[in-house]
């Protein structure tokens, strides 16, 4: 009798410990995000941000989950569409944190969206490891919201790198000093063109044309004819994707082929190469990649999991932001957001882009200027190991 009872007790204990073990195994970390799946921001979010969120979650779960002190924890995802509306994004993040009780929230796409939700992240003490929030004011904002991060750098960095690149070309006797600038008339275009104007004057470049155009503009022929009339050596457009896609065709039509042809957001998108093929060759833009083994592996995985190619500017940085977040979580070993934010501010992370450090919550060592060379958008600036030499003058448009 006695042995039978002890056997029973043992059995129950074994079952309980098994149950406990399986519970520890199935523990999940809840991650939520609000992203623009419809509306005007859906393009940027759909190319840059959402595929990387999905890729990362898939990869972490395939590796058995996040390694916490209590064991591995798989990621479960809560995903909302903010319909490109900041109010909706704020409501979504609030709901993710207070009702869905997510352990972490991933940031939305775009500067305006990230600024809108920043107070919510900060109030609840959630890290906002944002990528697509490009603003000169970021260092100020970080003082107000210590949980706010920005991984794409500052607009002035890009403008100064471009001015420096052109100055070097002038000094090397490869182009003249005449530069024409057009920009889209909104925050992004004004901030970048303003910073570029200051940097160009400092570097001794001559601005022979400087003109804004309304966002969404698509008939560039007459504008480019006017630019062509000033015969610049370098053409710089701080443009948005639809405009970026329209500009080379219009330039080819009016026969405008300056030695340097620089375009804004969208130059690094896979659709740009798909649309222009050999004509993309030599066109410069924001971002750039070092086509090494790490990049190729990332490219392959991105293609396999999301069925599309990453862009060559913010996509790898978005992936890197998640790599850093993962390391920070695993190093702390539990969901302690305060400690994780502190670690993100201090630590150096080993990532796809090499060592990543967030100085004052900003990643300042991103690739800034790239160029299509041999079918890849390679990095030119800043000048450091990995960067390639610019091909100037750009080849003529072939019909």
């Amino acid at each position, binding site marked *: 009798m006695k042995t039978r009872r002890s056997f029973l007790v043992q059995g129950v204990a074994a079952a309980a410990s098994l149950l406990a073990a399986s519970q520890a195994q199935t523990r999940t970390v809840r991650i939520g995000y609000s992203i623009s799946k419809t509306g005007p921001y859906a393009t940027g979010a759909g190319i840059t941000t959402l595929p990387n969120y999905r890729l990362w979650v898939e990869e972490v779960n395939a590796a058995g989950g996040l390694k916490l002190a209590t064991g591995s924890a798989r990621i479960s995802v809560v995903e909302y569409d903010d319909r490109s509306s900041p109010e909706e994004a704020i409501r979504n993040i609030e709901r993710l944190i207070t009702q869905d009780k997510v352990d972490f929230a991933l940031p939305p796409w775009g500067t305006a969206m990230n600024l809108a939700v920043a107070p919510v992240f900060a109030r609840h003490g959630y890290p906002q490891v944002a990528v697509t929030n490009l603003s000169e004011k970021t260092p100020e904002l970080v003082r107000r919201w210590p949980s706010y991060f920005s991984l794409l750098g500052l607009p002035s960095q890009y403008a100064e790198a471009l001015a420096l690149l052109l100055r070097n070309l002038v000094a090397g006797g490869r182009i003249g000093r005449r530069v024409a600038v057009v920009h889209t008339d909104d925050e992004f275009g004004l901030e970048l063109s303003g910073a570029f104007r200051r940097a160009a004057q400092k570097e001794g470049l001559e601005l022979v044309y400087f003109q804004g155009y309304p966002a969404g503009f698509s008939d560039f022929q*007459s504008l480019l004819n006017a630019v062509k009339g000033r015969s610049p050596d370098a053409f710089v457009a701080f443009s948005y994707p639809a405009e970026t896609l329209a500009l080379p065709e219009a330039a080819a039509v009016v026969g405008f082929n300056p030695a340097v042809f620089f375009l804004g957001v969208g130059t690094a998108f896979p659709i740009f190469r798909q*649309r222009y093929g050999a004509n993309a060759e030599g066109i410069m833009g924001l971002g750039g990649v070092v086509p090494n083994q790490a990049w190729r592996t990332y490219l392959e995985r991105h293609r396999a999991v999301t069925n599309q190619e990453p862009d060559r500017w913010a996509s790898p940085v978005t992936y890197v932001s998640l790599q850093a977040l993962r390391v920070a979580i695993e190093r702390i070993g539990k969901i302690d957001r305060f400690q994780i934010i502190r670690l993100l501010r201090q630590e150096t992370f080993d990532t796809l882009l090499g060592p990543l450090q967030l100085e004052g919550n900003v990643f300042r060592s991103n690739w800034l200027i790239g160029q299509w060379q041999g079918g890849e958008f390679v990095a030119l600036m800043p000048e450091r190991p990995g960067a390639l030499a610019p091909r100037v003058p750009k080849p003529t448009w072939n019909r």
Partner: protein
Amino acid sequence: MSILDALLTGAIAGGVYGLLALGFALQYGIARILNLAYGEGVVLAGITTALLYQGLSLSPLIALFVLPSLFALGNFLLHRLLFLPLVGRTLALDGEKEGRLILLTFGLSFLIQGFLAAELGGQLFSYSYLGQGVSLGATTVALNRLLAFGVALALVALAHLVFTCTRLGIAVRALSREPEESLLVGIPATRLSTWAFALGGGVGAAAGVLLSTFHALTPASGPEFTLKALVVVILGD
């Protein structure tokens, strides 16, 4: 030089927007339906053209013949099954009915946008077709814009001819001006309005095909085109 440039690009853009507005006007003016999902049809046709061109190398010129007929058929069914039961056989519209119709098209617009977002995500659709320049005296224009302008002008002129010179056209105009009285003189008003709605959808699809040859489209660009068509119709009224 720059003024001539501006005039020319303005005229060319005007031609395509004219076509865009013509389809919208057919649906609103004759079938009395303020179709807020009109832009979604335009975008759907444009994106389909881009996908056919990239996937199967099907020329947009072929798409220009195929897609408008398909879209006209789709709009025909839409009108018969969805809108006509709301409008009623006498085509008498009061404020309440009109409000319901607008809400219905609004919902339809969201439905199509949601479907496109789910299927295609936030991609951009853009391709190179007839991008080379054509010299027009002092200035040059891309061939694709010139083609779009030519086709748009031809279609608008054709519509004008039909409306002014044929018995059918007179009936349509009567219907658009006095829907109730037109019933009294034996105009088959419901049938005619269904046809006008279908035709409007077809014209919108043609505008979408032409636009896609030089304009980058996203699944979210629908409302932009509805708005543009609406503005042209209001200004031109």
